């Protein structure tokens, strides 16, 4: 007799029938998916397929665009993040986001990472410990430890992006959403961030939106393919890139369109 299959662990984040409208245009169409805990989930698809909208809906960033209307449900550990009693600020602390362009503030390296902690009015000792830990987790500390008071804008593009990741990690999120976070970086800087993400996934669940198919293949555990706002296919990255179930996925990942 075969062993019963191990139950699927509960997803950290899930969407059910998630649609996002811009006026009458449906950018996302009833997307239902589950983001596994402490894994890297890649979201791929052609430009305009709704990748960015999907992750912006995952931490209520879509609400910052008044022209967008959302239907369906997004759950974090089973709880509806759009429920009236839930604060979007709290949601965004649990589910952090890093953008394509590094968004460093014109302040020191230290202050950039300490930014979110200052809002919590934490003691300076605690702030300093968290700043150092976060810089280490983002793989940047060794490169900047000599002078944390340096202006953040003096860092290279790749370092600035890792600084943004350190700032997102400083408030100890459970989920980190990355929207094309390496798109503006050179291959070496990209490789550093990918290495860092692989280290980080033991602690944080990561959702990586990327138009770089090879990056999704080499970095993620699970891949979701979106096409014209619909979730076409989602599964183990190794399986999806070896033998995708859907013709649309096959056409996209083999470069036949998109």
């Amino acid at each position: 007799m075969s062993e019963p299959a191990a139950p699927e662990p509960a997803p950290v984040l899930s969407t059910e029938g998630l649609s996002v409208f811009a006026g009458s245009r449906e950018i996302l169409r009833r997307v239902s998916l589950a983001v596994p805990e402490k894994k890297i989930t890649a979201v791929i698809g052609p430009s305009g397929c709704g990748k960015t909208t999907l992750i912006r809906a995952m931490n209520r960033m879509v609400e910052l665009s008044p022209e967008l209307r959302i239907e369906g449900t997004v759950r974090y550990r089973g709880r509806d993040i759009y429920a009236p009693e839930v604060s979007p600020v709290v949601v965004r602390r649990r589910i952090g986001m890093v953008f394509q362009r590094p968004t460093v503030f014109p302040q020191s390296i230290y202050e950039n990472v300490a930014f979110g902690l200052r809002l919590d009015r934490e003691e300076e000792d605690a702030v300093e410990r968290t700043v150092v830990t976060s810089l280490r987790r983002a793989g940047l500390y060794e490169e900047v430890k000599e002078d944390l008071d340096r202006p953040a804008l003096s860092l290279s593009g790749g370092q600035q992006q890792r600084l943004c990741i350190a700032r997102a990690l400083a408030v100890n999120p459970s989920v980190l959403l990355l929207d094309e976070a390496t798109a503006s970086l050179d291959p070496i800087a990209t490789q550093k961030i990918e290495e860092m993400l692989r280290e980080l996934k033991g602690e944080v669940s990561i959702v990586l939106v990327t138009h770089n198919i090879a990056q999704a293949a080499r970095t993620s555990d699970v891949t979701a393919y979106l096409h014209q706002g619909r979730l076409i296919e989602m599964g183990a990255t190794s399986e999806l890139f070896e033998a995708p179930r859907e013709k649309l996925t096959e056409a996209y990942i083999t470069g036949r369109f998109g």
Partner: protein
Amino acid sequence: MPIAEKTPIEEGLGQLNEHMRTIAELAELAIRKAVESYEGTNGSGAAEVFTLDQEIFGLKLEITHRCVELIARYAPVARDLRTITASLEITTDLDRIGRYARDIAQIARELTPENKATIGQLRRLTRMGEYTIRMIDVAIDAFRARDAEPVRNIIEEDDAVDLLHDQLFHEIVGRMADRSLTPEVGASLILINRYFERLADHAVNIGDHVAYMVTGQRLTRVKRPKSGLRFAEEVTGRSDGP
């Protein structure tokens, strides 16, 4: 109407496919010529098989080089990746087919016309050759057509070839015991019989690679639960049906 330009990887896969078709034709030709060489129907058969075996080996090296280049340059995925890995594996099987054809031709070269005439009377050996060549043809045709359907039952057909191999082996041993076959001819026949059995295994391998290339699943997972056993009926003279 404008013609869509091929991407570089499509160009590379197209060239790989041309090479694969050529090496498959050479392997099919080699095994046919090898059979002709011991049946005595083609006097120069053995020499032709040796040349074909060398050509197959040379083409195998070229195909391996092309596959590695495609992987290195284009990081292929999905069907492209499966086509390349399946081509690498199929090439190895085709190379082995060429080598067994050479081994058979080598034995045939040592046989006298009288011995060839004696061998020609063994009906089971003729059938063994026919079945094996048919399996190789089916597997290669499936590869050419990118169609897993024709190879769905190839494992069962190999079971029938194994059965025929055993029957022929006992027949050869029996004939050696009653001295209707000399030890020299008997030993040659045992080897040829064994080579056919191995050739059929390579046909199964090719069928499996084709199934994987086309469907993403290995043969054991895509075959039908109830299969035809067409050769088995011929070998045993029995039919599973009413």
